[in-house]
């Protein structure tokens, strides 16, 4: 009975996830083909006096900012940063986390303990504070540094989860059976562990993307992530914050884009999780 109900929920979640996935795909395509999608050059300032802070119109669907730049175009280009940083950092973080987790789960108890105690310590580090510190104190960090910083401070949780999963899988009967068959460690990892870790890793990466997009926007909002004039949603909000009353679209549009994107990634991740999870386990 519960399985039936869960199945129904899963189905429903699937649909939302499909929609969210589509949205993510659309965003990704828009970002990839920004020059074709954006109606204008995101840096062009047609007339920074007469055309600044124009409300949305036919010419500028989302209005213009204080430099008379087209907000829509900047959002499209900003998606490159948000999605790019989010995806790259999430991928890197999850890869590192999965590798460490796998290593810890398969290694001797001593190595495992060493790795996991280190992760315990690392998890307690004030992550954002350290990122902020580096970005603030070092010279003008290019986006890949931001990616690296976020990724290298973001893999600890994944490694824990993966390790726990590996330990559980190692005890599972089908892995025992494979060991009894004489499978070596590489075969076990390839045939039995990875296929089971993959959903967790994929879901965790997807959900991570949303979180990292938020993190990056916060850094940019503080003026530490992506630096002007390059558009990123965080620095666009910062740009528009002072005009919140006279030109609300400048800050509202990227804020909304951020919200929608992060919602999409979370929904997509949730959906994937639901879709991967029960696998008809009785």
């Amino acid at each position, binding site marked *: *009975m519960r399985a*039936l*109900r869960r*199945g*129904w929920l*899963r189905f429903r979640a699937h649909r939302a996830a499909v929609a969210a996935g589509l949205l993510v795909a659309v965003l990704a395509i828009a970002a990839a083909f920004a020059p074709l999608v954006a109606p204008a050059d995101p840096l062009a300032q047609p007339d920074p006096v007469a055309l600044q802070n124009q409300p949305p119109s036919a010419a500028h669907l989302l209005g213009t900012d204080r430099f008379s730049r087209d907000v829509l175009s900047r959002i499209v280009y900003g998606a490159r940063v948000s999605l790019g940083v989010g995806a790259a950092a999430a991928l890197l973080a999850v890869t590192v986390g999965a590798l460490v987790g796998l290593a810890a789960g398969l290694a001797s108890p001593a190595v495992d303990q060493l790795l996991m105690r280190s992760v315990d310590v690392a998890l307690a580090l004030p992550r954002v504070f350290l990122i902020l510190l580096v970005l603030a104190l070092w010279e003008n960090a290019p986006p890949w540094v931001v990616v690296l910083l976020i990724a290298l401070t973001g893999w600890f949780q994944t490694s824990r989860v993966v390790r726990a999963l590996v330990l559980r899988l190692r005890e599972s009967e089908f892995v025992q059976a494979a060991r009894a068959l004489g499978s070596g460690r590489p075969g076990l990892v390839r045939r039995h562990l990875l296929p089971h870790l993959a959903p967790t890793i994929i879901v965790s990466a997807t959900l991570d993307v949303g979180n990292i997009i938020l993190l990056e926007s916060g850094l940019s909002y503080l003026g530490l992530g992506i630096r002007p004039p390059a558009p990123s949603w965080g620095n666009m909000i910062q740009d528009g914050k002072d005009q919140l009353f006279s030109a609300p679209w400048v800050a509202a549009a990227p804020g909304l884009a951020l919200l929608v994107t992060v919602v999409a990634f979370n929904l997509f991740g949730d959906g994937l999780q639901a879709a991967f999870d029960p696998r008809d386990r009785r």
Partner: protein
Amino acid sequence: MSDPRAPGGAPPSAAGEAGPLPGAPLLEIADLRVAFASEGGVARAVDGVDLAVHGGETVGLVGESGCGKSVTALAILRLVEHPGLIAHGSRVRFEGRDLLALAERDIRAVRGNHLALIPQEPAAALNPVLTVGSQIAEVIRAHQHVTRAVAAWRAVELLTSVGIPDAEKRAGQYAHQLSGGMRQRVLIAIALACGPHLLIADEPTTALDVTIQAEILELLDGLQRRLGMAVLLITHNLALVAERTRRVYVMYAGQIVEEAPTGALFAAPAHPYTQGLMAAVPRADRPAERLAAIPGQVPPATAWPSGCRFHPRCPFAWEKCREEMPPLLPAGEGRSARCWLLAERQGPDAKTPSPQGASGGR
């Protein structure tokens, strides 16, 4: 309280001779249907079950997993959850009232009070974060106007009565601190808290070791004798049914396929399924022999076979079995079976006692 545990080995008194008990049945189920919506379609888990339990008697409901016996138990208590639905037209009469028609408030007053359930998994049916004493006390307070202190005292008393030593201390413990047998005793104590007239025991010993299982069953027998309550014993274990019940219902694929007094059923099962089941049970008291397995699998509830639901696995099936579902047909005194063989009077004569019984189930 005296030690309620029965002296080991004494057989239950009523189980031997079977006959209709006088008066209206305590519990009477008519045309019970429960369906679940699922990805694979509608699962008709319980599909027209009729069943009766009289006061004081022990009735067995036996069947393999997926046959709908646990859902039947839940439906009696109206505990079928979304996305399951009890069909209109189903009736569950308990002490003269149709439980399915009661207001939520009123059914709650019945549950755990005069109609109690011993659930399947003792490990899962106790709340892990509440002390066992408080879980007993809360049932008492839910149905009786007593103070907290009285309820707590009653809880300890009940624990003692189900044979838990040092009950006062145990009452303050949590489920994980108790062994499996102890947990089941606690669940029995909870079920007995308000002096039920009918106890539904849903696989009460399946999760337990044989030696513990024996203990629990002895305890139940003793309690039943002392308290005079009726028991509906739901199990997959034919041996349990044979030892502990007076009458038996055999379920297959959401339906009752056979009903009979226990002795008669085991002496000569009428339905081919029952026959197959009995032949498939390995026995510790007999030397090794090849078991007679029933071929095939239990079909999924979303796709019951047409006609007789057992026909794909039945060695005697013919055309009619595939096309038309047999009703419960009389199969002797106090018994009936859902098999066309009874109507056609043909088939394996040696095994099927098929005189036309005057009385049927209902």
